[in-house]
């Protein structure tokens, strides 16, 4: 699994967690079922996109700092 897809997964979970926490802390009402799902869907998509980009950037940054970790091993 690449850093981008890991970031997307984390972002989707974080988006859902964000919506549920906003309701728990009294900032958001989730009682109409359709409205709740719309909130969760939007947050999951936004979180997935943003954290996918973050994951991609962090993966690139780690590779640039540690090129020996991503270089293919020379044949023996």
């Amino acid at each position: 699994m690449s850093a981008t897809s890991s970031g997307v997964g984390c972002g989707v979970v974080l988006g859902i967690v964000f919506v549920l926490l906003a309701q728990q802390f009294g900032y958001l009402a989730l009682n109409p079922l359709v409205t709740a799902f719309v909130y969760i869907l939007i947050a999951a998509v936004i979180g997935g996109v943003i954290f996918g980009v973050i994951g991609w950037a962090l993966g690139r940054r780690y590779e640039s700092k540690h090129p020996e970790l991503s270089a293919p091993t020379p044949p023996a």
Partner: protein
Amino acid sequence: MAVVAPRTGVRRGNILAAALAVSLALMVLSPVTTLASPARTFSVSVRTPAASGGLSANASWDGTNISTASTASSAFHISFGGSVNVYYSWRQPTGLAGGSAPWSINDARLQIFYFGFALGTRDITLSAGQTSGNISMSNWNTGPLEYVLEGLFLLTASLLAPNGTTAWSQSFWVDVAAAFYVLAALPIVLLLLGVYELYSIATVGKQQALKRAKSGGGKAPENAEPAPSTSPPPASSETADAPTAPSTPPEGGGST
């Protein structure tokens, strides 16, 4: 020979990555603070009396008419461990159009909703239906739910006829508090999950390098957990080269 980054450098990179991820996450999640005002001002349609029979009714929450909490911004508050008295009253309106039978009420119901589903229902039932009267539902609380959930919830007060028909209902909002405001199970689990996910995103670069190293694409990070070795065990020749301990002669072996 590959140059391996010093451990402190990797650690500093992890800290920087974590700080970057947390700051970006906070930027993304910051609307939670700005949501406070707009979310509390959005209007919610209130299901006003079913009124097919023109029943005139109302309910009060500790003496305050529940219609005053018809929006999330004007929600009633109920503290952890607190309880309220809900008072229902109804009567047949004067000047009722002829032909329609008056409502007979024998059940007052209060339901709490989450995601559109009723989490809890409490009924106070009369032995016989009454065309006008009142019902007091005393000491209503969220029960064990206050250990699990908190936040804004939609409640619906309704009056039912003996045949189960809803004669009147009205929805309102209640802000349920947990102990110390966060000590309910769901927010704790959500906070822990959020922290774990932020940690995962902060270390995503190292995890990616680890997985590549496992699949043979590169070298594993020095301070990472060792990947399961796929190389064969050390050859027996290596052990053969090791100096062997001199065999000790048996004690008292000297024969005379």
